[in-house]
């Protein structure tokens, strides 16, 4: 039984058709990476999954519950789906810890002590145990994004959505965020990720989708899309993106302090169940 099913989803803004009849499914533990040119509908697709954006047509199912039905309790749905934003969107007036406890207290109804304990555990998990009392503006972009991940994870979601989580970061801060995401992959979290990080896509994704003009042009295991793409557009786009964002295939490895000799990165063993040694650098 699939955890997430997106069936024939379409969305337009005015005359612009952002999504056209998009269909795909994810099983529990799957990591799906969506790539595509800007304006291709990637973010909209993600936002349709937790209904931050309403679909015009089609359905989304989470665990066979219809997300898009008008009578769905969206708040109950969103409790089960974590989201990480490109711009972090941390609550600016709250410390890192309180960013995490807000949902635990006000959505899950936990008492203050239990919420605090859980928040601290999740901040520890993303390597920010020492920054629990810092305000967002006092943290680096990479730290802010890791708080954003902790905030979403603390709700114990079934599915995590990542909307270009590293696109707003300075290059030297990308690794720490990808490192946390890799840990999640290793723990078996189900993740739907929009990113331009080709190293992450190649080594961590089970499935890669190439989205263009609101359509899934091609979808399959990343190795196949990188090495034997069926569509010329896929080849051209992935090649260009790899030049830009995949030079060192796995920046999280650098962040861990292991040398990364021009892209021949460390073992892919951090992926539970492993997706073979497709970690290599460079495009096709």
């Amino acid at each position: 039984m699939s955890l997430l099913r997106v069936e024939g989803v379409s969305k337009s803004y005015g005359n612009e058709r952002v999504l056209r009849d998009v269909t795909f499914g994810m099983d529990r533990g799957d990591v799906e990476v969506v790539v595509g040119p800007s304006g291709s509908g990637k973010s909209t697709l993600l936002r349709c999954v937790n209904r931050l954006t309403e679909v015009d047509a089609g359905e989304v199912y989470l665990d066979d519950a219809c997300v898009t039905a008008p009578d769905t309790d969206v708040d109950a749905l969103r409790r089960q789906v974590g989201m990480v934003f490109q711009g972090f969107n941390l609550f600016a007036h709250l410390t890192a810890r309180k960013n995490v406890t807000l949902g635990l207290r006000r959505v899950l109804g936990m008492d203050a002590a239990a919420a605090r304990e859980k928040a601290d555990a999740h901040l520890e998990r993303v390597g920010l145990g020492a920054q629990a009392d810092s305000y967002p503006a006092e943290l680096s972009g990479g730290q802010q994004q890791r708080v954003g991940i902790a905030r979403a994870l603390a709700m114990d979601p079934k599915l995590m959505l990542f909307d270009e989580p590293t696109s707003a970061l300075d290059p030297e801060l990308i690794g720490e965020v990808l490192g946390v995401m890799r840990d999640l992959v290793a723990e078996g979290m189900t993740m739907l990720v929009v990113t331009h990080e080709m190293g992450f896509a190649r080594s961590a994704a089970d499935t890669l989708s190439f989205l263009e003009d609101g359509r899934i042009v091609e979808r399959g295991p990343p190795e196949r899309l990188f090495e034997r793409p069926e569509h010329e557009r896929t080849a051209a786009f992935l090649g260009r993106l790899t030049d830009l964002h995949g030079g060192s295939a796995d920046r999280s490895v650098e962040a861990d302090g292991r040398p990364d000799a021009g892209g021949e990165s460390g073992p892919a063993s951090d992926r539970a169940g492993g997706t073979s040694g497709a970690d290599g650098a460079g495009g096709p």
Partner: protein
Amino acid sequence: MTTPAPPPASISLSAPGSLPAFPPLQASLRIAPPGGALPLQAGDWAFVFENAGYLLGGAALTVALTATSILLGFLAGFPAGAIEVYGGRYTGGLVRTVGVVLRGTPIVVILLFAFFGTPIGSAFLAATLGLGLRSAAYQSQLFRGAIQSVDEGQLEAARSIGLSRLRAVVHVIVPQALRRSVPGFQNEFTIVLKDTSVAFAIGLAELLTRSFDLFVQETTAVLEIILFASAVYFVLTFATNRALDRLDRRYAIPSGESV
């Protein structure tokens, strides 16, 4: 007016471009202060200090009226601002319209209406109602702007963890909007404090009304009394502004530079 206007015929006879004769200047000088003595005098200061208790009683009423008006303005203005942002077409439109009317009416007219146009018998309550509703109309704009200045991503993030729209606004948007509205609120506070003097128009015995009572009695002391009242207004506005500055710093959202 002592000088009769020239007959119309004289206008038509004058050279083209020349103006009709004006009344002589001394006619307009007749409105010089009674007694004509403006310079500050020790005796007049003595009069002021003899009556300082009376004036400070008026100042106490000024402070009380400011407090009740600001409070009413906040209690009505904050929800009004939120409704302008989040309300539907009709509730939002209604609140906007009431605000436009209140902001477009002179404060003296509002006070006269509150006192003479309603069954309210107490000048203090009428002044509170008039000043409070007028302040609410301005405070609503202050808070509307502050709410709209909070990044939309904040609301999305709050909704994404499962907070309802209302809770997201209450726990995430409002705390940030309130902090951002403190500087504007300082202005509003100062304006309301000074505008309590308009309650003079409905005879409420606040600071300016009592000042007037005194200089009608002792007409040479007008300047001294007005200076004294001004000093009291200044002390009150200065003190509340410094207090709000402290509040602003105390609750400011830390920015990166403070590290």
